[in-house]
């Protein structure tokens, strides 16, 4: 491409904060963003369940009636624990080391 492309206006700031503590403010915003992704995942699961019922693969209520057992149950428990440790572990370490 030979000609220069229009650059647009000067890029504005994307990280302005309004509270006295920007760290807490970004944590709050992060929480909203995570809620958004949770909402997206919930909708995805609801869609998949609706499609499976519609296609006759499962019956309505089958997911609610499902009881994980054996290897499946153990894997889930391990994943759950890993998530809790991943979220809170660094904070515990940091407070233990630096107060």
């Amino acid at each position, binding site marked *: *491409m030979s000609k220069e*492309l*229009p*650059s*647009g*206006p*000067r*890029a*504005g700031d*994307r990280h*302005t*904060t*309004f*509270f006295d503590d920007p760290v807490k*403010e970004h944590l*709050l*915003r992060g929480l*909203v*963003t995570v*809620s*958004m*992704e949770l*909402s*997206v995942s919930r*909708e*995805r699961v609801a*869609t998949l369940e609706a499609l499976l019922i519609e296609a006759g693969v499962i019956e309505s209520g089958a997911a609610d009636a499902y009881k994980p057992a054996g290897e499946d149950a153990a894997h889930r428990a391990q994943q759950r624990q890993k998530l809790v440790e991943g979220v809170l572990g660094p904070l515990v370490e940091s407070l233990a080391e630096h107060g």
Partner: protein
Amino acid sequence: MGKEQAIKADSAKAKGFGFAPDHDETARLAFVGAFKKFVNFDIEGRVAKLFEDTLVPGCLAEGKREPETRDEAAALLEPHPLYKLWSSMTYHSQNLMWDAVQQTTDRTIEDQVAQYQALVASGAAQGSIALSDELLVKAPVATTEIHRQPGGYWRERREDDLEAALNYSGTVELYRIAKGMSAGESPPDDAFGRFVSAIARKYAPDLEPRSILDIGCGTGEQTLAYKREFPEAEVHGIDCARPFIRFAHAYAEDAGVPMHFAEMDAGATHFADDSFDLIVSIIMFHETSKAQAQAILKECHRLLRPGGLALHLDVPYQPGQTPLVRQVTNHWQVRHNGEPFWTGFAELDMKQEAIAAGFDPAAAFATYESVGQATYHFFGGRKNS
């Protein structure tokens, strides 16, 4: 008649070309819409209640007088944590919105550009597109990311780019949700244009426009409404942002509606005197400046045929119409949401501006009209016959 019916029947969302989020992108946008609605109604409503029930009585209890101006109200509100929360969440909702639409755009942009290029190469368009290398985009559009849209309206990142318009188009339905205009079923994509057409008929019932100009037409989605509502008229749309003109052309062709789009400055168009019977715009004036607003109204007067109507829709936040708290939250847009002329526009008397631009005082107007729960400011004039 057959043609008219065909055009009206095609009012459903254009297929193939346009903003098309997938399942998860749709869910993400729906969340952002719900979040914005909560911020606009619940948090802002609570801020208004705090002002009336706590901050103003607190002022009076200290022996001070009640705040009377926007600045006095702002001085009370701005230090309060609830107002800071409203600011932070409004700001974040705008970041989330642009991030969300960008995901769809990044996934589809190459295909959209290819569709545009194929259309131009085919020479099969019913309408037309005219781009201008001479046009200089003016401030604030030249200098500001309006609504904090990354890249603004006119950045181009690839040949024949229309990314800015694709992103903008993705936010329209979300804004409807956020402003409480969309409950359940979505209104047609050209609902604003149809609303303006209905007001044109109300203000000038005898007018049968043969040619219509939509200034600041943006994506052209609303411009299509004028051809659908007035099928006998030749309809033109102009905008100063090239990606939007490309998008509008492809969108109209995809919808099967013959329209003419051109990249042009609304204050200095290339059209001859007395070219149009109806000139319209939708939420454009507040994105200009005082000088540009006057130049555009003058241009409207020049371009209208005798008996023609200039009819402009914009935000209804004139101080006389707007409670103090709302004036404060509106003025926040100037500093933090890329809307440098938002307050300046609200403080202009658009009827006087129309008169200054050449419209007869008896035929100039500045009014308010409602659609559903939303109210808009209308202004312009009719050129003397």
